[in-house]
């Protein structure tokens, strides 16, 4: 396994000026630099898709948060990806209202169509499939979120249709 020499990481060179500015702004409105940690992870993830070890070390360096502590934070939260993900991350709700209204068939259709299971990414790098806790669309279940977009009233057919369109048009990372 590749190891990273953390003493040589220099966030000035690793993080972009935009990333640093956004993180510094966040830190300036919080009482402690540590409090900007979660936001910093989100900022970098938005730019790079996921949080690599290098990103983690650079943020830890910038905000003076021990790496182990920041790693504890990064792995605690569901919406921080510590592994590379596909262009589109499918967050399929697997909570109760969706379960009661046909989640199983939607899930089966998506798995079959993409040929992946939860936690996996398609070989072309287009899609990653994750489960998500209740998306707050329980009256329009089953539901999923891709990028910032919420899709509701899913059926196996409509779910595949959405994925098909996305694989042509690319992701919604607005």
């Amino acid at each position: 396994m590749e190891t990273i020499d953390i003493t040589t990481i220099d966030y000035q060179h690793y993080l972009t000026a935009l990333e640093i500015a956004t993180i510094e702004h966040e830190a300036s409105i919080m009482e402690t630099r540590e409090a900007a940690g979660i936001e910093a992870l989100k900022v970098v993830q938005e730019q790079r898709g996921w949080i690599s070890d290098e990103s983690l070390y650079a943020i830890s360096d910038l905000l003076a948060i021990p790496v182990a502590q920041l790693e504890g934070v990064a792995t605690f939260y569901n919406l921080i990806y510590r592994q590379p993900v596909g262009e589109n991350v499918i967050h399929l709700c697997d909570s109760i209202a969706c379960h009661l209204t046909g989640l199983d068939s939607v899930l089966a259709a998506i798995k079959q169509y993409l040929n992946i299971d939860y936690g996996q990414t398609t070989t072309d790098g287009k899609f990653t499939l994750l489960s998500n806790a209740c998306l707050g669309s329980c009256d329009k279940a089953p539901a999923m979120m891709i990028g910032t977009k919420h899709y509701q009233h899913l059926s196996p057919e409509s779910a595949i249709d959405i994925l098909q369109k996305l694989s042509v048009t690319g992701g919604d990372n607005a």
Partner: protein
Amino acid sequence: MLEHSNNNHLKPLTHWVNLQQPLSFDDYCQAGGYMGAIAALQQSPKEVLDIVKNSGLKGRGGAGFPTGMKWSFVPMFEADDEDAPDNKYLVANADEMEPGTFKDRLLLEGVPHQLVEAMIIAAYTIGANKAYIFLRGEYHLAAKRLQHAINEAYQNNWLGEKIQGKQFTLDLYVHCSAGRYICGEETALINALEGKRATPRAKPPFPQVSGLFGKPTIVNNVETLCNLPHILKNGIEWFQAISPNSDAGSKIYGACGRVKKPGLWELPMGPSLREVLYDYAGGMQDGLNFKGLLPGGASTDFLVEEHLDTPMDFDSIAKVGSRLGTGGLIVLDDKNCPVAMVLNLMRFFAQESCGWCTPCRDGTPWAVEILSRIENGQGNLADLDALAQLCDFMWIGKTHCALAPGAVEPLRSALKYFHDDFLQHIEHGCCHYNPSMNAKRTHVAQIHLSKTPHSSITPTPHKAGQ
């Protein structure tokens, strides 16, 4: 008695909701918005506190704690008091991750200025100069709309320094969470805002005294807060007259599952379960019968047919053995398996447990394991005792927060009301709701039972432990 000419006075929280295009600052003011905040700023914080106390407003975040009383625990100081902390905080809890709960989303996306106004009133009352909206990360549209409303409020001197010419400063920020159900627990939420893992804190100290960054902090649910502008504008008597019931005001009720018209309805506190289920949600979809429901989100006890005439207020629902919770019905029909339903809920709790307390960290996955076995037709009678014992291990007082007892509620009530279903799974070695799976499952079940008849009551050793 009421000057309004239509029914809108009965739904103060939602009658300004517009999901397509929420009211701008100007339109919101035109409609009568910020009148509550004006009324509040004309009085002393103590007077506003008394109004909130006397209104009878109770928390809508699940526990139903009286809001005025909660606020009264915040220490108050004179301007020249040397002991005064340099800040206090107000946080709106917009985490809303309880499965089956989607009411706050309506208020956040549909009328964001109402929450901003509410937070100005609350912050003024407790003397907070900084406030946060703790928003779940998935609510992107709400984040955008809230930020827009906040910007407008700054432009119009409702946020920032010397608000409306008073000696009152308030800054308001939106924090978008990185996602975890436990963030909704108020002390875990405070840790998340501090940039930490969202593990709850041991109490005392209570957040009202020592919360965010060690300063006095009030955390209130979005719906709770949104009542404030209306109470301040229209008065205590108006608020209490909304509901014929012992609980004052209105409440946003909801229903999901296979009912005809799932949705949300703001109603005077205390409609019967039957009214919400049949008059508003339209009853069960064709071909399905009602089997049971969770009255207020995933962490409340099942209720069944015999309870349907119970009014949905805090005390009445508690009397029949459940909780009003968030007021959102999760409805189970007779073609969905109750064991599978409880298994789905328990998986959620196991996944979202923060891992601090042993009964919760180990108890929830253990319950998942047993329930999966029963659902797959591999359970035995001793499993039912093991589940009952787990309910006891995870009950109130044995864990630091209410996640574990919340996980117990649907399980223990399912064991009571759907006992026959559990027995059938065990006796027939299959799930009779899902016959297509039966052949395979029966086969697996027999092999399993013949090899390890009692394995089900032994806990699996944990990765780290051994």
